[in-house]
């Protein structure tokens, strides 16, 4: 196995550890907020726009720590593929593969732009 394969494998193992860590946060958060929330589907039958920042502020005021921990776990999980692409770009730069590094950077920019759409709309 060459150096490049070893690096790729390290990146993937990092992803697996990341999934476990985020899973732990999600499980703890869900467990903590489970008792307080007896009918979670009641408010989700119809769609209403309530952005993340407002939700976080509301849960912080209500000291709903379980929800906040679950949100942290979800944020870690969503950011894992972004970190993976970033590490791949670094790997290509290290290997002096300019074109592949540029393509990886385009994917990374696309991901960031896509995230921003959630703030705008």
């Amino acid at each position, binding site marked *: 196995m060459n150096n490049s394969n070893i690096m790729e494998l390290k990146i993937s193992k990092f992803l697996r550890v990341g999934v476990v860590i985020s*899973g732990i946060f999600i499980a703890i958060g869900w467990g903590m907020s489970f008792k307080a929330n007896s009918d979670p589907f009641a408010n989700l039958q119809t769609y209403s726009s309530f952005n993340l920042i407002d939700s976080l502020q509301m849960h912080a005021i209500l000291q709903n720590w379980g929800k906040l921990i679950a949100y942290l776990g979800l944020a870690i999980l969503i950011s894992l593929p972004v970190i993976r692409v970033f590490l791949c770009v670094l790997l290509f730069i290290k290997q002096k593969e300019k074109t592949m590094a540029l393509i990886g950077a385009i994917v990374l920019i696309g991901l960031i732009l896509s995230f921003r759409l959630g703030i705008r709309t």
Partner: protein
Amino acid sequence: MMSLVLLPISIIAGFIGSILGLGGGVIVVPVLTLVFGVDIRYAVAASLISIIATSSGAAASFLKDHLTNLRLAIVLEVGTVFGAMSGFLLSSSLKSSSLFLCFGGFLLFSAVMMFRQKKDPRAEKNHPWAEKLGLHSKFPEKGEWIHYKVSNVPFGLISMYVAGIFSAILGIGSGIFKIMAMDGAMKVPMKVSSATSNFMIGVTASASAGAYFLRGDIKPEIVSPVALGIILGAWLGAKAMPKINAASIRKIFIVVMLLVAVQMIIKGLKG
């Protein structure tokens, strides 16, 4: 109590998805909408989270088996990420009824594709872009290394863009489109296209999941049991795969998919 019921259902979804090579989205979205009456937008967002978890969790084992083509994945992710952006924007203007109709249509298409006789053709020469970027590679089969080339990269990129749109709108991994483009048009060996697709769906799902998350559509009360159940189910499915007759499960699942497709279309038509 109701959210506790979601856990075993998601474990089953992850288990079946893992055995049949499907994302959990095909199961999670209909269950959340048809059984629990959750708005389809929340169901789509919850499903995307479970896709990231299964794709990221499985990446190491596929890379270890030398089946994932990382360079090809990065190139094709340009198409899927920008497709996911378009899909997210498009989803904002689509009504729930249209989403149900799209999902029903996708299930029908997937069921038909599962009947398809699978071929595994090989490219004789690289497309110029594949040559320049070094996208050709090799994979192990029956104790020896099989070298392969990659053709029709532009068509692959366009297909990935479309796959990205469907992923964002319907909360699916779109693995079925990705594999069709890779082993159909680009003539990448089937084992490699499956592993590379699994590697890519996490990035595709992340593009739209990040936007849904910031918009507030990802609700921990449903996403938590779904994500945890899918992770556990996919892990159990991978362990059980050698001992299970996947062919008979596939036949049963095709019938279930057709029934669910009809239900989704009826719900879409009723508005």
